[in-house]
């Protein structure tokens, strides 16, 4: 054990060198594939090498990080420096959908789509200021672990687990589905098999080393995903504006879009009033829903267990705080680039597709049309003949004739910019890294809650270390397989549940975490009543308004959209928690001391009798 720990700290001291080499190696690999493409290696082999090589590297990191120590398995031994934990959190946080579909959402919604950009970043301020440093000091292995210690044991723990599973399971199914789709596209294997290839990759990364392995693979995955995200749009910006900094230069694209929007109506390409102006607010959401959505996404971010648990791994409270800053910086790099993607993509479409003769469409339209991702006149734009047939009688493409799938705005950029296939392969590897890293984090959050909270704390508190770690892996495997079966067998409607995760997590967890730390007077009864009420109201509203088969499709109350259901649940949760706390006797002196200890950075971790260091 001593040598293993010595090896661990050697590893920590050399992180810069190790990940520097890794990044250099990855760059060399991309250049090698670019050369192979030039000498005529077919695209499908290149795609196969991209996906295969990156999965093998992630799996190797996972295997090298294997461990048989409890604190290594659950919290990476609390040795992850702030900077690297920031990268890992960024990869954990940014899903396959953030990578592939965020820019497309902004393309479709314009200004209103920025609610997602704001909501998914601003929540980190709450994580840093209100929650993460205190949970780190407490020293929990899971979020329900803290709720149990602060709110009188297993009932609070159980509620925490319900919230965690409700917020994580559909989310992980979406990630697994994403890996299957990418494997299908790049390896040419059927989706169902792709899903199980993805699951195998995920399990190899997480099963042997738990949090420790997931941490170091997520850092590696962040590097791949951010390079893959930036490169195509940087090149596109250089081509279009002469400056390779898309985030600064897309103002030009915005101006071009605005003037093209105006000329479309004048040229008869769009009917007046049908153009959704890119820069104008409130064309999709009304102001109330715009702000309600930002609010729910922010609070949800600060309540999602798979994010909060990343801050359990830092060496100190101080590093946990700083680490939130690094996390948001690394997330920011992607999120402030997404609007640039959207703008450059829209500029291309408005300039080179809308208003063009059917015979003059750019090549990328057909490439993605064949995949069913670009439609013209309502039919997949697979070829010139297909387009001509669908648009019978029309000479030029009008605005209403054209539609593009959300995820193509990023994926088609390499072809729009006329780049070789190797860049498309890189984007695929990036999307895969984003989906895998988020799936890793979510699966571990669920499996850890089941193995640590349910099995160890509730069912078999005397289990020896070895048995606990074996159980942890069996459960992880089971959850992964269940997720994979859901991704292959369940109706696609289940993906709509992903949007519920933020509101459910916000209403279920946030009041209890926030008041548990910041208000000593909050009692066990208050917290339990508040969690049930907040979560219950949110769930009820979701089911009340959702379209069948998920709900009853009732008209929204006060016009609040389904996705922002937390706007009802959160205040209810807070009010019930405060009122019931006031009506019940104040927490014991012992509990108040525990809150003091959680607040004060100095001193040992509190959970597990402070005995963690000795394990």
């Amino acid at each position, binding site marked *: 054990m001593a040598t293993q720990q010595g090896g661990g700290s050697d590893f920590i001291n050399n992180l810069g060198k190790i990940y520097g080499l890794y990044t250099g190696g990855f760059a060399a690999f991309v250049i090698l594939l670019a050369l192979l493409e030039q000498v005529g290696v077919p695209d499908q082999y290149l795609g196969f090498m991209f996906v295969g090589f990156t999965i093998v590297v992630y799996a190797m990191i996972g295997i090298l990080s294997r461990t048989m120590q409890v604190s290594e398995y659950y919290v990476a031994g609390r040795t992850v420096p702030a900077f690297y934990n920031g990268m890992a959190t960024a990869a954990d946080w940014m899903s396959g959908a953030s990578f592939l579909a965020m820019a497309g959402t902004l393309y479709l919604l314009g200004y209103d789509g920025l609610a997602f950009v*704001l909501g998914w970043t601003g929540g980190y301020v709450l994580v840093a200021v209100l929650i993460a440093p205190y949970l780190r000091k407490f020293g929990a292995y899971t979020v329900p672990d803290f709720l149990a210690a602060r709110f009188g044991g297993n009932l609070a723990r159980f509620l925490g687990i319900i919230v965690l599973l409700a917020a994580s399971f559909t989310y992980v199914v979406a990630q697994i589905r994403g890996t299957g789709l990418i494997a299908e596209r790049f390896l040419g294997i059927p989706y169902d098999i792709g899903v199980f290839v993805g699951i195998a990759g995920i399990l190899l990364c997480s099963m042997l080393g738990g949090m420790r392995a997931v941490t170091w693979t997520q850092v590696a995955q962040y590097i791949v995903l951010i390079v893959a995200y930036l490169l195509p749009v940087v090149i596109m910006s250089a081509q279009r504006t002469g400056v390779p900094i898309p985030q600064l230069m897309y103002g030009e694209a915005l101006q071009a879009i605005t003037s093209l929007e105006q000329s479309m109506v004048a040229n008869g390409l769009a009917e007046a009033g049908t153009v959704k102006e890119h*820069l104008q607010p409130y064309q999709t959401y009304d102001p109330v829903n715009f702000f309600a959505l930002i609010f729910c996404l922010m609070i949800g971010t600060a309540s999602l267990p798979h994010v909060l648990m990343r801050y359990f791994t830092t060496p100190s409270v101080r590093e946990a705080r700083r680490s939130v800053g690094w996390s948001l910086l690394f997330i920011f790099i992607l999120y402030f680039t997404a609007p640039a993607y959207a703008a450059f993509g829209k500029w291309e479409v408005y300039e080179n597709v809308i208003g063009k003769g059917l015979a003059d469409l750019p090549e990328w339209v057909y490439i993605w049309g064949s995949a069913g991702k670009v439609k013209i006149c309502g039919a997949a734009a697979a070829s010139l003949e297909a387009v001509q047939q669908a648009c019978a009688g029309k000479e030029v493409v009008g605005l209403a004739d054209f539609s593009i799938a959300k995820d193509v705005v990023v994926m088609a950029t390499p072809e729009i910019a006329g780049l070789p296939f190797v860049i498309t392969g890189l984007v695929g590897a990036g999307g895969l890294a984003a989906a895998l890293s988020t799936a890793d984090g979510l699966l571990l959050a669920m499996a850890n809650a089941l193995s640590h909270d349910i099995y160890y704390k509730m069912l078999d508190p005397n289990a020896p270390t070895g048995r606990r770690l074996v159980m942890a892996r069996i459960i992880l495997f089971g959850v992964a397989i269940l997720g994979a079966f859901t991704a292959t067998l369940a109706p696609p409607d289940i993906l709509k549940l992903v949007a519920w995760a933020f509101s459910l997590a916000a209403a279920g967890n946030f009041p209890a975490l926030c008041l548990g730390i910041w208000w000593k007077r909050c009692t066990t009864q208050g917290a339990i009543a508040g969690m049930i009420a907040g979560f219950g109201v949110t769930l009820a509203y979701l089911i009340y308004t959702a379209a069948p088969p998920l709900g009853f499709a009732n008209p929204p109350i006060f016009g609040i959209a389904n996705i922002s259901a937390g706007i009802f649940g959160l205040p209810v949760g807070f009010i019930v928690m405060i009122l019931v706390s006031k009506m019940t006797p104040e927490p014991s002196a012992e509990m108040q001391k525990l809150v003091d200890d959680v607040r004060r*950075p100095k001193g040992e971790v509190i959970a597990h009798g402070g005995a963690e260091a000795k394990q």
Partner: protein
Amino acid sequence: MADANEEAWWAKTKGLMYICLAIWAVFGYIIHLFVGPLNNIVIFGFPLGFYMAAQGSLIVFVVLIFLYSYRQDAIDRAHGVAEED
């Protein structure tokens, strides 16, 4: 540890928390209420209202968290409740 010291430390910690949440609320919500008028100001092709939602507020959030972590650490050290280095 003296209780008075600890109380003073917690009062400062709470003060910092309120300041951070106020800045968060301004850049997360309030400034975006003025998107219309702000859009009349255009810098490098970016209407300011759009820019604030796409980049400006995000930059403020990142800087805010780093400043918070340094300020909170200074408060902890001044009151002797910081962890050892």
